């Protein structure tokens, strides 16, 4: 009901969504606190919210949080940039050229269901445990995700838009930059948001496969010492990172894709 009753302006919608979200987050926090204090879960396996935030503050003071965050962001960012660029280009090509799509789609359909984590041993065997193996793994996962969305968006661009552009004398370059690109922009935005979430998933898989810093690496180390408070803090950071990146991409997208209702 919110969406239909409130005016289409952005200002009216965000607080409308934020309210219920804050209530839900508060409830989860309260439930968590009660569970941790009640002793239902074996003592020491479920930290209280307070212990978790203390562990987070500890990591922030000690510098490990900054080191891990920087290492993870660099990997995820570089892998995402490479994968999104290649996946976007491939998506435009196969979305626009049905014959190329007929050749490439079966291959991609075969590769897509293989989760990135299943490729970690192979990536390690081929590229070692260095940074390039991690970046390539993330890039690969992002490429497949972005390709799918962009391909779908480009192949749905109404044929009459392209025909209208041709009969108005627009050469190929203008048909691409002024018709195909803006027409596929909503799909491109969705592709980048989905690709960013996939980059974080692949990041975790890549770091669990062997690293000396990073958010997921730290989770593994803390796990070995049963430091549940630090593990909760690490999961909290991963979750917030995902939400933050998605919100940033959505905000950038709204500036460019102002005409799209969805």
């Amino acid at each position, binding site marked *: 009901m919110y969406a239909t009753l409130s005016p289409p302006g952005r200002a009216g919608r965000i607080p409308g969504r934020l309210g219920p979200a804050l209530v839900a987050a508060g409830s989860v926090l309260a439930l968590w606190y009660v569970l941790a204090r009640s002793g239902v879960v074996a003592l020491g396996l479920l930290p209280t919210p307070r212990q978790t935030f203390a562990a987070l503050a500890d990591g922030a003071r000690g510098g490990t949080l900054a080191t891990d965050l920087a290492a993870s962001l660099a990997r995820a960012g570089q892998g995402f940039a490479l994968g999104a660029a290649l996946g976007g280009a491939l998506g435009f090509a196969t979305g626009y050229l*049905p014959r190329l799509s007929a050749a490439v789609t079966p291959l991609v359909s075969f590769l897509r269901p293989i989760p990135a984590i299943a490729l970690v041993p192979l990536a390690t065997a081929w590229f070692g445990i260095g940074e390039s193996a991690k970046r390539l793994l993330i890039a690969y996962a992002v490429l497949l995700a972005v390709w799918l969305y962009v391909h779908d968006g480009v192949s749905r661009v*109404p044929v*009459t*838009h392209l*025909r*209208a*552009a*041709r*009969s*108005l*004398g*627009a050469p190929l370059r*203008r048909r691409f930059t*002024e*018709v195909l690109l*803006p*027409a596929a*922009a909503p799909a491109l935005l969705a592709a980048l948001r989905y690709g960013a979430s996939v980059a974080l998933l692949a990041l975790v898989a890549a770091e669990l496969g062997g690293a000396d810093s990073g958010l997921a690496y730290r989770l593994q180390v803390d796990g070995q010492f049963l430091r549940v408070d630090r593990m909760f803090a690490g999961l909290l950071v991963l979750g917030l990172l995902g939400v933050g990146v998605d919100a940033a991409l959505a905000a950038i997208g709204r500036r460019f894709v*102002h*005409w*799209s*209702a969805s």
Partner: protein
Amino acid sequence: MSGSVRLEGLSVSYGGTRRRNAGASGAAPVLDAIELEFANGSFTALLGPSGCGKSTVLNTVAGFVRPTAGRVTVAGTPVDGPGPDRGMVFQHYALFPWRTARGNVEFALKRLGLSRPERRRRALAALAEVGLAEGAEKHPAQLSGGMRQRVALARALAAEPEVLLMDEPFGALDALTRTRMQELLRELWQRTGTTVLFVTHDIDEALALADRVVVLGGSPGRVLADHALPAGPPDPDLRTLIARQLGSP
């Protein structure tokens, strides 16, 4: 005769190399050896039931569809792909939703290499021509169906085509808007002298607009009748005759 159009033994089949309509027998013929000539500055309605291939005639003249046999010439030159000498108005407008009404018209003017202010001035003039001076800075989503089709008409005419191709352009409009758009189109046609090919399945629309009505039908589509319309109000006997021709197989 800059805007004269000739269809010379025009046959079109879908299927074969194309993806759609590929039946068991292979290529499905849509048009069979059509011979027609449209004089420069004439206004012809191509009338027929849906599926008779009348839109395919238009798409072939526009250069979107390649003939399997025969050819189309415009001002004596064979058609080889789309070009700005032939403007198209689509049933569902085909406006670019990310551009304003003015932006859509400016898209058509870009190829002329005008300065920005000149392009803007001409786009606004073209919108004023179709009675849409007020809505120039609105996006298509903010405009009604009739207003969108006015923008599409302004955009097509801004490119100054020799031939204006219209594919059931008023089919999605309500009756009142439709009548207004028909009046506007007649007015614009008389002012610009563009050759108009207007596809419709509505007899009354064909009679109200055109000075010639070509009845298409059958499968594959062929010319069933060709009527030159006398000036003046529509003739009820002619309407009855065309209705009978449309009903025949």
